């Protein structure tokens, strides 16, 4: 009994930081509609800044003052980020801003590395709260008790701010109808800035508060991000009580999980999330997301046409050039080109889902990594010949996509996105923790192609044919009746359903198809590398694909491929340098600001302005 209560209390104490970060994310999303991927980075900054301040400021006052100051400092940083990075792109297509926040993640990662170094920092103990209290014989750190007291206080203060003050009224009004609030004369720009700063300050506060428990390290940002997404979704987007309750549930569950089911800790959180969403699709306290037809930001998409003769010739020339690469390129160039081709196919499969279907998947790596693991597991455990294993990779990924899609497609918008992310993480944690079968963190090795494909050049041609074939097939489907139906379901579900189109089934098929193509890319990947590790299933891999699609241009057919080639090419060039993330992050932010329609979309506009392309009628 004593142990039970002790664990309950530890769980409740852990919930504090999680709640603060989650409520910040939720607030920001509610008002600005930005899914702030960088929220974990602000949390990490809070911890690091708090650490430094604690070194400088003495005593108990210094300790608590440092936490408070860290929160404020992170709030200010958040404000700067909002003004410099996000404000220029509010008019960009929906969700485009998350690309910028991804750039911020990279920048913060490298800045933290520069300033605080690569080693984990041990958080200082809170003065006067160093020991433990015994409750029913079980030791409980005093600091946990302090957190237990502080968290509800912060939650109450926040609740008061949101429900009782004028600022809170504005925030809630903006959550419901941004345009109306703007029409009533509220300066939206500053409201957005204020909310963003507040959300970041909360994240920073959370980071600093957990210092004595967890210290500070460079992996904090992604580690908390998934947990925060889960909390926000379980609690319901935009609900403070929901975020609090969900944070408590997840934290308590985690503590118990570590004790009783240590091998399942990572999985547990996502299982709970899936269960909650099956019963309450919009979270415990959430309301239905009113998305779609009226919430569209930015210009409508242009009609698409199958490629004309000119474009076909150009593509043929491009493919011919790629085919000639082994004649003049080095071995290294071929390996690099293989990487890029595979990544382009992966990106094109997500683009199909996102661009044509309007389905924002945050967890597309599940099918890429899934396909790769299907092939690798077959080779490792069943001695399957490479050809068969390769064939089964897309099929396995497609089947995973059918199951996951069947559950996720009950939801739309950001809930759909979060749920796909949860499933990807679920798959990742399965692979990570089920070491006997998957090799866990050590991965699976010696997954080599069949002898006839074993040379670099042979495999390059293999990858070239399948990647280009896959990409062309994806594009072709876009122009088929099925592709039309997919766009119809995205443009107006009402009209589509009223003219006999089963939109759910259309989306389901598209999801499975995109999953299969990602699985094909995964199969190509695993045999090109000869090994596979869990990080191919990770959240960062999903984000890579997402960023690439947005960077290339969601609303253009070739956005995925162009973005993919650009991103992978630049990444391969930059990773040789020490602070490549900083450069990459800044580059992404730069592209986002100068090309809010994505690379292809913006080039098209420039070409139209220069008179090289015929301007779309009536559109300026």
């Amino acid at each position, binding site marked *: 009994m004593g142990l039970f209560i002790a664990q309950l209390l530890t769980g409740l104490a852990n919930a504090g930081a999680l709640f603060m970060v989650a409520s910040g994310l939720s607030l920001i999303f509610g008002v600005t509609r930005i899914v702030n991927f960088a929220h974990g980075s602000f949390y990490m900054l809070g911890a690091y800044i708090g650490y430094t301040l604690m070194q400088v400021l003495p005593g108990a006052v210094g300790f608590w003052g440092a936490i408070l100051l860290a929160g404020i400092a992170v709030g200010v940083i958040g404000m700067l980020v909002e003004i410099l990075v996000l404000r220029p792109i509010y008019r960009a297509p929906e969700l485009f801003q998350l690309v910028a926040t991804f750039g911020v993640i990279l920048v913060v990662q490298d800045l933290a590395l520069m300033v605080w170094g690569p080693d984990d920092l041990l958080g200082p103990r809170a003065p006067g709260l160093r020991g433990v209290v015994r409750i029913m014989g079980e030791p409980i750190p005093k600091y946990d008790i302090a957190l237990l007291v502080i968290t509800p206080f912060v939650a109450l203060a926040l609740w008061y701010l949101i429900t009782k003050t004028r600022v809170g009224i504005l925030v809630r009004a903006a959550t419901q109808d941004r345009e109306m609030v703007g029409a009533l004369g509220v300066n939206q720009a500053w409201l957005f800035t204020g909310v963003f700063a507040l959300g970041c300050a909360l994240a920073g506060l959370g980071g600093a508060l957990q210092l004595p428990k967890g210290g500070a390290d460079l992996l904090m940002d992604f580690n908390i991000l998934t947990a925060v997404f889960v909390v926000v979704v379980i609690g319901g987007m935009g609900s403070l009580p929901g975020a609090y309750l969900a944070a408590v549930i997840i934290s308590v569950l985690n503590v118990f999980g570590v004790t009783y089911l240590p091998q399942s800790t990572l999985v547990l959180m996502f299982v709970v999330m899936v269960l909650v969403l099956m019963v309450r699709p919009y979270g415990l306290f959430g309301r239905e997301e009113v998305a779609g037809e009226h919430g569209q930001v930015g210009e*409508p998409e242009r009609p698409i046409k199958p490629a004309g003769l000119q474009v076909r010739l150009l593509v043929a020339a491009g493919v011919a050039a790629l085919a000639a690469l082994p004649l003049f390129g080095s071995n290294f160039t071929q390996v690099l080109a293989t990487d890029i081709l595979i990544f382009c196919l992966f990106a094109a499969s997500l683009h199909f889902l996102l661009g044509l279907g309007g389905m924002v998947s945050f967890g597309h790596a599940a099918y890429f990594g899934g396909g790769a693991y299907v092939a690798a597991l077959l080779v490792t455990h069943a001695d399957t010949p490479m050809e068969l294993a390769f064939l089964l990779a897309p099929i396995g990924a497609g089947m995973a996509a059918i199951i996951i899609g069947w559950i996720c497609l009950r939801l739309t918008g950001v809930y759909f996105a979060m749920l796909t992310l949860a499933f990807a993480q679920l798959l990742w944690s399965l692979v990570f923790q089920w070491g006997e079968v998957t090799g866990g963190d050590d991965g699976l090795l010696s997954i080599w192609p069949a002898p006839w494909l074993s040379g670099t050049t042979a495999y390059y041609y293999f990858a070239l044919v399948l990647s280009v074939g896959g990409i062309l097939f994806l594009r072709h489907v876009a122009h*088929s009746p*099925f592709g039309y*139906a997919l*766009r119809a379901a995205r443009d*107006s579900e009402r*009209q589509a359903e009223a003219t*006999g*189109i089963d939109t759910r089934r259309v989306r389901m098929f598209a999801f499975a198809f995109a999953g299969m193509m990602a699985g094909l890319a995964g199969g190509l990947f695993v045999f090109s590398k000869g090994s596979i590790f869990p990080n191919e299933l990770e959240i960062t891999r999903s984000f890579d694909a997402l960023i690439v699609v947005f960077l290339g241009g969601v609303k253009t057919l070739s956005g995925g491929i162009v973005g993919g080639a650009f991103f992978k090419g630049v990444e391969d060039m930059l990773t040789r340098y020490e602070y490549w993330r900083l450069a990459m992050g800044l580059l992404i932010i730069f592209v986002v600001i100068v090309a809010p329609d994505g690379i292809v979309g913006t080039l098209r506009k420039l070409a139209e302005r220069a008179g090289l392309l015929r301007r779309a009628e009536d*559109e300026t």
Partner: protein
Amino acid sequence: MSVVLETRGLTKAFGGLVAVNDVSFKLQKGELLALIGPNGAGKSTCFNMLMGQLKPTGGRVFLMGEDITGKSPRDIWRRGVGRTFQITATYASMTVIENVQMALLSHNRQVFRALPFAHRMHRARALELLGMVGMEAQAERHCAVLAYGDLKRLELAIALAHEPTLLLMDEPTAGMAPRERIALMQLTADIVRDQGVSVLFTEHDMDVVFAHAHRIMVLNRGELIADGSVDQIRNDPRVQEVYLGGGTVFKSEDEAADA
């Protein structure tokens, strides 16, 4: 004459609010029937039940004698019912003709084909349908840049794609200029005459209703309070009471000039 659509005791309650209460009516083949009533009378609710977007709490709906109560919009559409929306719903990223082609593809059950080029399919028929609503010349335009009246006409072409026996039009002329309203309703009346389609429509504009409807039903607070010819409705005291303050609306233009 044969009955195309019939409702018996159609009822919809949202919690304690009874939006549509015990509505029964019949729609004959080739009829242009108007459903009118003040704001909040339950017209749209009624419509959404007929088209399957809402499930009735009570009563039944029959299409050509067949019970279609509670069927999905897709099912009802397949049985030959077309509809247009109060707020237009079209595929903004497509061209005008592609919008119509999409409906034709669905009608021919070709939605899940992934190999042929869709833009070559059913072009002639799509152009024919666009011709019917006078949109042929704009076939290749981007749907997102159309004028509102043209969107309404496009919606009509989409609704006619599967040669419906019944057309449900929710406020077909809402948001249009007076001249456009008359043109659109004239177009609808022509289609009723030429194709033998039956039409049920709701409308706010009394000029439109009195000029084109064959028969009028009046809904007030969820209940059907009158059902009759244009003249009967015009002179019905209960209807006039409902439209209090809008007296001139119910007189013909000559009478209004005399007053």
